[in-house]
């Protein structure tokens, strides 16, 4: 019964949705201080390549690879975030776009390390490693009536689900704190924020590095879920795709990019015909959103009204 319900393909789609949700959160963090980054594909790539190389060439455990990948992306984010602080809006976007392309060109050209344009294959798979671990404890897929590949997909999905929920919880708490209020103040009016005693340098760099780190983390997970990465995975298209999660879903509250990532990743799976035109639709969406609802589908007012309604219900 359970065995029939668990379809590895659907689980894989769900896993990709979760990774994209993490990416959506990563751009949300950066945007929540009003900084537009087009370099998140680059940070994602750094995480992915670092973890793939560490686990494959240096036989590090997966956990180490993924954590180091995320931290490395965060450090690079710090290095990019500090000097680009003095750039405003459009210029920051262009500089990060340049950064993303430099990273991609490096991936292509550092062949000794990255295998060039061909990409790295047979990267250790999270699911297989997990199932192997379980087997060492004497647990087998057949014990709960599953086939091995079902258990692999299921374990990947469950692990990603837990990670994603933890990340979301982390940033919801951060948003509802002194740090989150500082972010929001900077986004709404940088000058006023600094006049009210907010150290804008610190918080902007913090947000940028956090965003880079989360993107790198998602990249590392991506590498170990697909088991294959190439420079093309981290191109301008990816950067725009990450951005559109936030633009479509909304960048004012964390639920916006989460919804955007989930909806836009699921859509081509539900409507097969759409997949072919996916990027064209993305393009049209960006234009339409800017013209009619620049803050995205889910915005502060909407969440506020929902909260008010819930409050009223609680009273009556």
């Amino acid at each position, binding site marked *: 019964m359970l065995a029939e319900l668990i379809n590895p393909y659907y689980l894989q789609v769900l896993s990709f949705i979760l990774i994209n949700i993490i990416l959506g959160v990563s751009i949300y963090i950066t945007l929540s201080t009003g900084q537009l980054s087009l370099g998140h594909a680059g940070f994602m790539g750094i995480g992915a390549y670092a973890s793939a190389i560490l686990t494959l060439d240096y036989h590090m455990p997966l956990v180490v690879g993924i954590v180091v990948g995320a931290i490395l992306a965060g450090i690079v984010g710090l290095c990019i975030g500090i000097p680009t602080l003095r750039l405003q809006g459009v210029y920051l976007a262009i500089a990060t776009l340049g950064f993303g392309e430099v990273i991609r060109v490096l991936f292509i050209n550092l062949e000794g390390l990255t295998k060039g344009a061909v990409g790295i294959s047979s990267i250790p798979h999270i699911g297989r490693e997990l199932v192997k671990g379980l087997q060492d404890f004497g647990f087998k897929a057949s014990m709960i009536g599953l086939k091995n590949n079902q258990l692999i997909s299921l374990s990947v999905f469950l692990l990603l689900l837990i990670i994603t929920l933890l990340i979301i919880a982390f940033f919801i708490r951060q948003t509802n704190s002194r740090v989150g209020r500082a972010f929001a103040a900077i986004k709404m009016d940088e000058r006023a924020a600094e*006049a009210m005693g907010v150290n804008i340098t610190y918080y902007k760099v913090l947000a940028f590095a956090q965003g880079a780190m989360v993107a790198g983390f998602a990249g590392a997970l991506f590498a170990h879920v697909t088991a294959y990465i190439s420079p093309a995975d981290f191109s301008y298209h990816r950067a725009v795709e990450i951005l559109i999660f936030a633009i479509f879903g909304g960048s004012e509250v964390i639920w916006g990019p989460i919804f955007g990532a989930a909806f836009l990743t699921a859509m081509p799976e539900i409507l097969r015909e759409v997949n072919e035109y996916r990027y064209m639709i993305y393009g049209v969406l960006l234009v339409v959103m800017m013209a009619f609802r620049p803050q995205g589908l889910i915005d502060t007012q909407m969440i506020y009204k929902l909260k008010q309604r819930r409050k009223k219900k609680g009273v009556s």
Partner: protein
Amino acid sequence: MVLEVRGITKRFGGIQALTDVTFQVGKGEVFGLIGPNGAGKTTMFNIITSMFPPTMGEVIFMGKKLTGLKPHEVTEAGVCRTFQNIRLFPEMTVLENVTVGQHCRTKSGVWSSVFRTGAQKQEEKSIREKALELLRLVGLEELQDTFADNLAYGQQRRLEIARALASDPKLLLLDEPAAGMNESETKDLFDLIQNIKKLGITVLLIEHDMPLVMRICDRLIVLNFGKEIAQGTPEEIKNNPEVIEAYLGREEEEDLA
């Protein structure tokens, strides 16, 4: 002295916005900064709060040099301001706006916020209580959950004052707080400034509403084209021929225009 402004000169390209302006503000004073439009009053505020550096001169606050500090460090030192063209955080609620004002007096970071440590919870509670207290002071308590953007003009001005007070300033800079207010709102503002004074906070005030300025200020400086033309008590200023000319001259120009 709470504030000493020493020989401040500011040039923007070829324009001389301020020329060698010097004044001192004593503890607990309400000190007025007046003059026609373009006299350099807001520029002076921007220099005191280190929004930009002066070309020459320095600002000393309670023995500490403010010039060269970053704006948030000036706020930490105990100087906070409001803006002439209201700069609230529009998509935050009234209450949230005031909590941001307390930023530099609180210290929870990323980890304590995410793990909700006891200290952080305690701090959040006290932030909220203090914000409500300040909203009570400016009379916006009932509107705490309204978005700042949806407030009436006069209410926005009062919220800006509450937000600035949240940073526990020893010196409060008010940039035209009465602008756009009607008579009863101006009267409320008068009472509010009196109350702020009672809290022991020194006030530096830019204002065009002369009756208000003359009633509330202990001393004044008058600027015209970036230069000091007079300094003294309201009585002395009222009878200063140069001040009268500066203001009358302005009125004539306005008549012509």
